[in-house]
C-alpha cells in the first residue's frame, strides 16, 4: 500500500478501511472506503465512530469525490479524509478545499511540485470546507 501524504498532525490510523456495504452491515470498523458512486450521506449517522474515510478517485476526471468530501465535512466529520487513486498534484489544492487532508495517489507525486501547488493561491472566491475566508468576506469585514 502507498504511504499516504497526510496534512494532519495526529497519528496515522492503521485499521484497514472496509467497504461501505461491509461498514453498514453491522461492522464496528472505524475506517471505511467509499467508491466514487457511493452515497457519502449513508455515513452521516456514523461519523462519530469513524477515524478514517477513504474516498476513491478511479480516474482523475471523475469529480464525484469532491462532493463526497464536502458533504462529510459539512456534516461535522473531523477524522481523516483521504483521497485515494488517480489523484494528481494539481488536484490536491482543490481536494484540500473540499475537506481532504490525506492523499494516497496511485502514482508518486513530486513533493516540490505539491508544495508549490499548495502555496500558490493566497485568496479564494468561495467558501468551501477548508475554512479559508472567501474574498467577499475579506472585502466586507
Amino acid at each position, binding site marked *: 500500500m502507498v504511504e499516504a501524504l497526510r496534512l494532519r498532525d495526529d497519528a496515522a490510523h492503521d485499521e484497514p478501511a472496509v467497504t461501505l456495504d461491509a461498514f453498514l452491515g453491522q461492522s464496528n470498523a472505524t475506517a471505511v472506503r467509499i467508491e466514487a458512486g457511493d452515497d457519502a450521506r449513508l455515513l452521516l449517522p456514523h461519523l462519530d465512530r469513524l477515524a478514517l474515510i477513504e474516498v476513491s478517485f478511479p480516474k*482523475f*476526471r*471523475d*469529480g*464525484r469525490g*469532491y*462532493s463526497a468530501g*464536502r458533504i462529510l465535512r*459539512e456534516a461535522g466529520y473531523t477524522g481523516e479524509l483521504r483521497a485515494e487513486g488517480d489523484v*494528481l498534484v*494539481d*488536484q490536491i*489544492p*482543490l*481536494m484540500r*478545499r*473540499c475537506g481532504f487532508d490525506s492523499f494516497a495517489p496511485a502514482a508518486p507525486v*513530486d513533493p516540490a*511540485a505539491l508544495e*508549490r*501547488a499548495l502555496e*500558490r*493561491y*493566497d*485568496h*479564494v*472566491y*468561495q*467558501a*468551501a470546507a*477548508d475554512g479559508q475566508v*472567501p*474574498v*467577499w*468576506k*475579506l*472585502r*466586507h469585514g
Partner: protein
Amino acid sequence: MLRMVPLPMLGRNLQVYQYDTYDQSIVDARVAEFRDQVERRLSGHLTEDQFKPLRLMNGLYLQLHAYMLRVAIPYGTLSSTQMRVLGDIARAYDRGYGHFTTRQNLQFNWIKLADTPDILEKLAKVEMHAIQTSGNCIRNISSDQFAGAAADERTDPRPWAELLRQWSTFHPEFSYLPRKFKIAVIAADEDRAAMRLHDIGLRITQQDGVAGAQVYVGGGMGRTPMIAPLVNDFVPLSDLMSYLEACLRVYNRYGRRDNMYKARIKILIHEIGVDKYRAEVAEEFAHIKTLGIDPPQAEFDRIAAFFADPAFADTTADAPVDRSDAGFAAWLDQNTHAHKRAGYTIVTISLKPTGGIPGDASADQIDAMADLAEAYSFAELRVTHAQNIVLPHVRSADLRAVYDRLVAIGLAEANLDLITDIIACPGLDYCSLANARSIPLAQKIADRFADPVRQRDLGELKLKISGCINACGHHHAGHIGILGVDRKGTENYQLLLGGSGAEDVSLGKITGPGFSEDGVVDAIERVTDRYLAERTDGERFVDTYRRIGMEPFKEAIYG
C-alpha cells in the same frame, strides 16, 4: 490583512468591472501555476493525458495544426485597453487575427504552447485571463450584449454575471464535473443570449420588490438539443449562490460519467425528470443554505457600482440624424438598436463581411474598433454570441462619424440578423472534431445572397452552421441551420428549419436527406424563394415556417 485597493490599470471612468488586489492576486497566481504546468509538460513530468485537463481548464486546445487559446471575455464586456491587448497578442503570437466566438470569447488559432504563459501574463496585466474557457467546469458566464444600454432591460445583468464569475472561478467542488457547464444571465424580455439553451439560464426579475432570478436548468445544443425547463420561478439574490451550488452538486453527484455524450445536465434532467431534479435541488439547497456561502448585499452593490451609467451628455440640442445617404440609412436600420437613453444608440459592428470568416477580425481591425470605442462609446465594447462587436453607448449625433470610420476599415456591412450574418463554427479547417468545413460554406452562402437589397427583402433570417453534431455553430437554433456530417468519407450537409435561440426559443427540424456543399446552397435558395412566395405582411421567415410547417419547404427542396 490586505486592504481592498482598486488597481489603476484600466482607468478610473470605465463602466466595466475593475480588479482589486484580491482579483489580481488570483489571476496572477493562475499565470504562475500555468507556467509551472507548461514547464512540467515540456520537461516530460506530465503526460499529455494528464496535462490535457489542466490546459483545457485554461482554454488551451490542441487543434489540427496548432494550439488554440481561448481568452475569456466575461459576459462579453471589455474595455478598449483590453481590446488593444487582444490585437497585440494577435500580432505577436498568432497570424494577425483573432476569432470572436459564440460564447462571447476570443480565440487565437495559431498559438505555440511555450508562448502561452507569456500571453497569459500579458492578459493578466489588463485584468484578463483564460480561466475555465474550456474543460468540464463552469465556463465563461455569458449575457446580453446590450446589457446596461438596452431600452427594454429591467436591470443590468452584468453585476449578477460578475458575481457568478467570481463564485465559479476555481470552484473546488465543480472543477471536474461530468461535462462542461454553461451559464447565461439576462434581464430583458428579449433574449439575446440564447438563455434557455444553456445548462443554467437565469432571467433576472423581481418579486415584491426583492431582486432575484428565474432559474432554467438543462438546456443545451450538442447532439441532443434541449430547451431548459423552468426549475425555480424565483430565487432571491440572497440565496442564489446556495441555490446554484445545490443545482451543481446534484449534477456532480448524479450526472452520467459512463458516456461523455450523455454527461450534460440536460440528460440527467431528461432521465430523472424535472420534478425529481427540482426536489433533489430543494433538499440540497435546504442544507447548503445553512453554510453561509452567499455573499452579502454589500458585495453585490460593490460590483454593481462598476456598471453605473457612463457620463451621458446632454443631447437635447443634437440635430436629428441625417438619413439622406442610402448606404448609411441602410446600416442605421439594420445595425443599430434603441438605447435606454434618449440621444444615444447601440451600434453593432458586423464581423460578417461578404467573403470573410464569420467572427474573424484582424489585429488592425481590433485596434480600430478599440479606437472607435474610445472616441465614441466611453471606451467600452461588447462581444455578441452571434460573433459581432457592439459599441454600446454611441451618441446618435456621432453615428455618421462611426459609420464612415467603419467603411474605411471594411466593417460597415449592414447585415445584422440577415441571412449573411452567419454563425459558423471553425469547422474542419481548424477543429479536430469536425466532420465538414463550415467557413467555406458560410462564404458560399454569403456570396449567393450578397445583394444587399435581396438580403433586406428576406428580412430577419438567422443562419447557423456547425461542422459536426457538437453544434458549436448553434445549428439547432438557426431559423435555417446547417449540420455538416461525414457520409462515407465525403462532407455532407443536413438542412434544418425553424430553430430559434431567442425568447421564442425552438429547435430546428431536419428537412430530409443531406446535400453536397453546392447542393445545400441551392436548397437554401429554394427555401427562401418559397418563403417569399408564402409570406404574409410582416412575417419573418421563421414565422412563415411556423405557420405553414415543413411540408411546403420540403416540396420546394426535394420536388
